[in-house]
């Protein structure tokens, strides 16, 4: 897991000096945050008046708060839709790019461009594309004589936001999977061709197993991003009152913590989100052993 050289003499001092920022980061950063968040979640505190102890009061309040429960549901539903769309879409794109001959570099660049653009800008652009009558999508739909769709209306907003989000993320996933595809040795395919394997069989018995580590990595990144969704939600679903038509847990943390200054309640929400993420990661790494092939 770590290197092999034993530090000698002055190296021992240098070694700890170079590790110092990281060690500070672990102690005061993540671990400290976790402990501090846990402690704050037991308080009622608005930063103006002194904090008061409420024990598990914030948690019991959240357990019956329909808005918070709805935000957990929205977050999980969003993740359940976003992750498969991202993975399947990125894989399809990667396979397509891998087939491309001349101009592969150009297509690769274009496909990646959305990933480098800020979600805020993309959200702004999609607001305009999704606009109810005057937006690009409905203009195009109306032009071919079909009934228009209220993309950001109650029924569709969930899918519209997910699609915009996937649009912004596909390129990156595709590039990572493309690198995986390129690292599959050509000899494997060659041997399969000699055995008369179909393209489908080659995909399922060679490509997929061999790039499964890269896919697994993508699944983790996509899941973590989905559970922490905020930017697109903020840009596409924020109502005039500041509430969201599709409030995720992180949106609730933002509202409670930094609009209402309910620091304790917001910390409790963040802690619950952390538990959900950690639990999902444990499940993933259990599944990894069954589904992912290394070498």
């Amino acid at each position: 897991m770590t290197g092999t050289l034993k530090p000698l003499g002055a190296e021992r001092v240098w070694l700890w000096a170079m590790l110092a920022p990281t060690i500070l980061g672990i102690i005061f950063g993540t671990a400290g945050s976790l402990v501090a968040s846990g402690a704050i979640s037991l308080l009622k505190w608005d930063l103006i008046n002194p904090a008061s102890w409420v024990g598990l009061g914030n948690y019991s309040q959240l357990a019956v708060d329909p808005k918070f429960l709805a935000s957990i549901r929205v977050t999980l539903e969003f993740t359940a839709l976003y992750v498969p769309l991202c993975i399947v879409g990125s894989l399809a794109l990667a396979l397509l790019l891998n087939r491309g001959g001349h101009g592969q570099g150009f297509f690769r660049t274009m496909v990646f461009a959305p990933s480098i653009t800020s979600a805020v800008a993309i959200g702004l652009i999609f607001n305009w594309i999704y606009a109810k009558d005057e937006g690009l999508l409905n203009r195009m739909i109306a032009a071919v004589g079909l009934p228009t769709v209220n993309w950001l209306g109650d029924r569709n907003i969930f899918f519209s936001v997910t699609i915009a989000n996937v649009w912004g993320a596909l390129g990156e996933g595709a590039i990572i999977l493309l690198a995986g595809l390129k690292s599959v040795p050509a000899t494997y395919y060659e041997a399969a061709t000699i055995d008369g394997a179909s393209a489908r069989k080659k995909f399922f018995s060679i490509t997929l197993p061999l790039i499964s580590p890269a896919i697994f990595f993508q699944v983790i990144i996509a899941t973590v991003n989905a559970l922490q969704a905020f930017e697109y939600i903020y840009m596409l679903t924020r109502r005039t009152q500041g509430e969201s038509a599709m409030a995720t847990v992180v949106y609730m943390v933002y509202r409670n913590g930094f609009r209402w200054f309910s620091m304790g309640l917001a910390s409790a929400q963040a802690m619950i989100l952390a538990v959900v993420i950690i639990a999902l990661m444990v499940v993933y790494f259990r599944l990894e052993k069954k589904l992912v092939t290394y070498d």
Partner: protein
Amino acid sequence: MIDKIARRRRRPASVPVYLALAIVLVVTAGPFLWMLSTSLKPQADQYDGRFIPARLTLRNYERLISSAPYLLDEVLNSFEISLLNTAGQVVTCAMAGFIFAVFRFKGSKLLFGLLLATFVIPPQVALIPNFIFFSKIGLVGTKLPLWITAFLGGAYGTFLLRQYYTSIPIELAEAGRMDGVTLPGMFFRIYLPLGKPALSALAIITFTGTWNDLIRPLIYLPSQQKLTTLTVGLSLYQATYSGQWTFLMACAVLSVFPILLIFFVAQKQIIEGVALTGIK
């Protein structure tokens, strides 16, 4: 035989593949072009639904300077904060990655394990304690909280660089040591130069990640437009100029342009760097 297959795989793609790529291109570039096209229309034409503007104007861009005087400040702030974050992450993660890749010492396994464990703790958990900490020391409303934390390393970057450094033969370090190279010497003369691809990958990921961050600037610099970042600025303009699509799209163009420019110039390194992050 291998040569033949390799050559076969490099030939021009078939018509269906190009057709599919063309569709992908339209879907990818479409929204950007629509943004650009809208931004070049006079406001009176914003609802005309034309992809190619009937009348071209730079009026919206002129208005950026007169009506949104802070936009340039916001671009510069975003640059400043992103660069500082990048510097912090690259320096501290490279040092830690190097140590973990090369040395074995008492507690090294434990420390590396601890670092990896922090990977699964979502950054939102830190949001509130950090805010309270910075508010109590009077730094809320300044840019400092948005970059200082980047100088404390990170699981993602350290892991990425350690992985890359382990692919460098340890004999190089050993040989250097024989020649009396100190530990910092090893880092600066051997590992840093050889690890450039991984370093640039981390730099790019950190830079764009910070550039695109919304929630932290929103918390620390909610409305001081001179001090805040472009993402906060854009979200403010969305509310202030709602319905003025030609102007809003000009704002979007300005925010997208610098980063796309960097991207197109350095796209080969960026894409290779990102690809690197996915390979175990």
